[in-house]
């Protein structure tokens, strides 16, 4: 916990906002995605990869809101992804295929789950908080595997993407890409506002020193709970998108490994910056996607047999590589960026 608390965002300058280049570049790249995709010659593949980056980036960013700004290490955040995805799947299987119904239901369900589990989890601190959020996540995972009517272990396939006000607005991959882009951008802007607001300042203050916050008259629990619920709702939205992208819903969305990956994305990108989490998600997913090929290229001097084995076992490189990045790039990718800019 202290480790996390030490990774602080740069101190605020006296009144006035700093112009930040990184998020502008980030969203410009996403906005150029469809052009990049069609230029690459593998449009469908690139588009779907970038959509996935944005969706998991949204989930990672939602986690950063409580992890980076509240020092709350939630190890069950994938549960919200699952709630969002199952809200879409279950409603669709009952004939409600409109996103205008599904998303509010998903958000309400995420908020409800966040409120109940948060109210219990936030009574604990440190490692106990990690374990109890993990336990709630696992509880939901096993609940999903036991839902025989909705595919149980195997999950279920959606008949089609959600409709929007009765129209097949996001049926095409490009349209869905823009829908995901829009969700990410709006949520990012919202999160930025929240972090700078009175509420966000109380949350950040509690991260720094919760006894001090009580001594000036705040009850940290209320603010942490509200942040937890808000963060869960954002992740729930990501879950809706994830289900729509793959047109498939399964318990695999809410495994504890997925929760761990989300934490990793946030730490990799840099805690407490919001866009850092999105960059972390991008780095994580792109590395996961292209590492086998990179290894294949790098292994040119190896025998064919060894080379094949290296590529096949790419995760043996992936794991240590991630550890090295976290060890040597304190503050994640955003930390490197900041160091590069301020000497």
């Amino acid at each position, binding site marked *: 916990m202290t480790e996390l608390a030490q990774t602080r965002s740069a101190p*605020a300058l006296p009144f006035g906002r700093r112009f930040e280049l990184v998020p502008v570049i980030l969203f410009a790249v996403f906005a150029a995605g469809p052009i990049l995709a069609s230029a690459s010659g593998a449009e469908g593949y690139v588009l779907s990869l970038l959509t996935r980056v944005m969706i998991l980036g949204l989930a990672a960013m939602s986690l950063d809101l409580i992890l980076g700004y509240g020092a709350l290490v939630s190890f069950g955040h994938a549960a919200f992804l699952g709630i969002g995805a199952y809200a879409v799947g279950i409603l669709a299987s009952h004939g409600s295929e409109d996103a205008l119904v599904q998303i509010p239901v998903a958000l309400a369900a995420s908020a409800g789950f966040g409120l109940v589990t948060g109210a219990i989890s936030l009574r604990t601190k440190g490692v106990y908080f990690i374990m109890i959020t993990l336990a709630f996540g696992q509880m939901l995972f096993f609940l999903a595997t036991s839902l025989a009517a909705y595919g149980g272990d195997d999950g279920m396939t959606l008949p089609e993407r959600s409709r929007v006000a009765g129209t097949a607005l996001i049926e095409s991959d490009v349209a869905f890409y823009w829908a995901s882009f829009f969700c990410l951008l709006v949520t990012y802007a919202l999160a930025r506002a929240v972090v700078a*607001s009175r509420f966000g300042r109380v949350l950040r*203050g509690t991260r720094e*020193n919760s006894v001090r916050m009580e*001594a*000036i008259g705040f009850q940290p629990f209320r603010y942490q709970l509200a942040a937890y619920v808000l963060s869960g709702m954002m992740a729930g939205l990501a879950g809706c998108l994830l289900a729509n992208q793959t047109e498939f819903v399964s318990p695999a969305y809410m495994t504890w490994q997925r929760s761990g990956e989300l934490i990793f994305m946030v730490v990799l990108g840099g805690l407490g910056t919001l866009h850092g989490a999105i960059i972390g998600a991008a780095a994580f997913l792109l590395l996961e996607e292209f590492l086998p090929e990179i290894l294949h290229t790098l292994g040119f001097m190896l025998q064919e047999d060894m080379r094949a084995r290296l590529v096949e076992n790419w995760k043996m490189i992936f794991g240590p590589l991630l550890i090295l990045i976290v060890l040597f790039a304190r503050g994640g990718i955003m930390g490197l960026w900041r160091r590069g800019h301020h000497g």
Partner: protein
Amino acid sequence: MVEPLLELRHLKKNFGALVVTDDVSLAVEPGELHAIIGPNGAGKTTLIHQISGFLSSASGEVLLGGQDITRLSMHERVRRGLARSFQITSILPGFSALENVALAVQARSGSSFRFFGDASRERGLNELAMDCLEQVGLGDRAFATAGFLSHGEKRQLELAIALATRPRLLLLDEPLAGTGHDDSQRVVETLRALKSRITIVLIEHDMDAVFSLADRVSVLVYGRVIATDTPVAIRANAEVRTAYLGEEV
């Protein structure tokens, strides 16, 4: 006699078999600076913790302005006008000095469940915060990151934070602890300026400071108040001399 602002009635606290606060009754009158002195381990900090609500009491009552606040939590007591500083500096190290104080202003002015609008640019909060910083002589350090302030400046910042909650009663737990000569001179001057306006309960080891600031002094030994009187009378008290002051005075 005036109604006391703070009244402790038969307050007790034990950690297991160890009795730390042993039947303490004390009345702090409005406007006075009431110092509590005592040897190390006498239970002074524990007593402050009990008054502020950081620790609960085994039995007895704490009354603020005649109201029983024994069962209230720390943040509820703050809202009733009871502020405190800590023996070990407790600030928000990653925030600027101004934001440290502005948060305390924010705590008592309007809801903090506001999710929009940049809090660091709220004029009303910043102006009041700046005012508190100036009162403790830290105005020129407002934009410095609190974690990088000198030790003495951090002690002053704590005072400013406590002031920003607009307390009726200020509990100060060794505000001079660890400060050098110049710093401690500054804190003493700040306290002297404040004592006319706010009722203060002061725990302090620096006897020069205590006897120059205090209106009344209580002596705590092994969790018991053995004497409460004016500084002059305390100096002359034989029991106090043997129990505590020894050759110091």
